[in-house]
């Protein structure tokens, strides 16, 4: 018993010694920021804070999709419009989308669950790449903005097969890839 106590004391003294001498710094898991003054990057917190301003900026800059349809390329363009829903395609749960009628090109609004592209991030000017530490954070920010689109705009639409044939009014970021225009919405309403 005495031996155990002595060992425990020795261990405590050693730990205190090495910590006191700066040989090792002991930090509670995840509490490094208290010592370094740095806060861990939280993309969802940033996108949540910025969302309203991002929506306002894209809405302000949006042009009627019918007018700019032919000019859209791989760079994101802010667009708006009202169109008839041809179909809500949900064959693949991870890649559902609304197909819009009345456009020259194939135009879809992505409705999750996975969102591709960085159109929303690329259309806002509130944050730029240099505000982030690295490419990973910049990419995380884009993903979080897409998640805001999903939780704040797409989910409340309550999509079902009933939406086919109804009219939708939307604002969002559009890009064209392989002849198809894909829109990530920042506001949408089914009439």
């Amino acid at each position, binding site marked *: 018993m005495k031996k155990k106590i002595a060992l425990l004391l020795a261990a405590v003294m050693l730990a205190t010694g090495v910590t006191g001498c*700066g*040989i*090792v*710094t*002991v*930090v*509670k*898991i995840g509490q*490094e920021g208290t*010592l*370094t*003054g*740095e806060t861990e990057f939280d993309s969802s917190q940033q996108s949540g804070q910025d969302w309203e301003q991002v929506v306002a900026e894209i809405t302000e800059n949006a042009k009627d999709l019918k007018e700019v349809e032919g000019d859209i390329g791989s760079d994101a363009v802010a667009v708006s419009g009202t169109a008839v829903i041809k179909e809500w395609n949900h064959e693949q749960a991870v890649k559902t989308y609304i197909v819009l009628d009345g456009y020259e090109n194939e135009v879809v609004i992505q409705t999750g669950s996975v969102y591709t592209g960085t159109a929303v991030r690329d259309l806002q000017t509130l944050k730029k790449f240099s505000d982030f530490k690295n490419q990973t954070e910049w990419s995380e920010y884009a993903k979080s903005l897409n998640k805001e689109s999903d939780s704040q705009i797409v989910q409340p639409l309550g999509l079902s097969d009933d939406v086919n044939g109804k009219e939708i009014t939307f604002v969002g970021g559009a890009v064209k890839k392989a002849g198809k225009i894909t829109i990530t919405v920042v506001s949408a309403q089914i009439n």
Partner: protein
Amino acid sequence: MSEKKSNNNLMMTILKGRTFIVLIILVIFFRIMKSNFLDPTTLAMIAKHVALYGILALGMTFVIITGGIDLSVGSVVGLVGMLAGGLIQEGLTLKMFGVTLYFSVPMIIIFMLLFGLFTGWINGLIITKLKVAPFIATLGTMYMCRGFANLRSGGATFSSIAGKEGLGNVGLKTLGSNWFGIPAGVYIFAVLAIIAVVLLKKVPFGWYVTAVGGNEKSARLSGIKADRIKIYVYMISGFCAAWVGLINTAQLSAAHPASGDGWEMNAIAATVLGGTSMAGGSGTIVGTIVGAFVIGVINDGMTMCGVSEFWQKVIRGAVIILAVVIDQTQRNLQAKMALQARNENK
């Protein structure tokens, strides 16, 4: 007869100093090809690389003199980098206590050097106790270390090795910086080279190493603990590889699991070029240093001249073969001269 003898003597002198002669020729050649080859910045860059190959080659010299080979050093370089980088960037998390330990850089250096010794000890044990051929044993540990290096981060790079003041773990990058205009690695190479010279030539340990490589059976009969000596030389090699892992990580400001890939070949090439016999029993540290310079000058010189990486490999391979052939010629000539001398004495 005496003319033939003096020709042999001249030939012998040239053969003994062959690596140094090659080094001078290479420097002149690359200086003609690239006018900035001898600029201070270029020399500092070459010295930086030579230090890495050189430190590895120091350890390799001891191993090859005993008749062994250590293929694991390149992977140990990668693994040490990943372990050091991980300790700095992520610390050591002890989930059961709910804490993360961030070690100071001197402690990390000590841990990594001990780890290098440990890998060498494992190599030595496999070779001496399990009687596995050095080539196979170290080939196995080479793959294992590379695997562990990838497992440490899932193949990703540790890019924040600068550490943080608040966590008390800044300073590793000092090993990759210049001290008074000379890369820190060069100083470490110089200190390790001096220690290696003393170990090999001035203390009994060095004689034992040479004796084990020259004739293991005789060495055992004369009371030398050959197995222990072999374990020690692999530990020296691991220790040197750990230093290279630390310096390389500091120079790159990042730790990548593929670091050090194929460097064992540079180390072997430098050692062989330096005159260490692959058959064991002979070799010098000074020769290895010159060999490391030759490898460094060839590598950087060819890169500066725009020679493709594929051709560089071809040329490096040819240089190694040539070095071994010349080594063999020297040995044959030595034997011939010894025989001649004996006949004359009769």
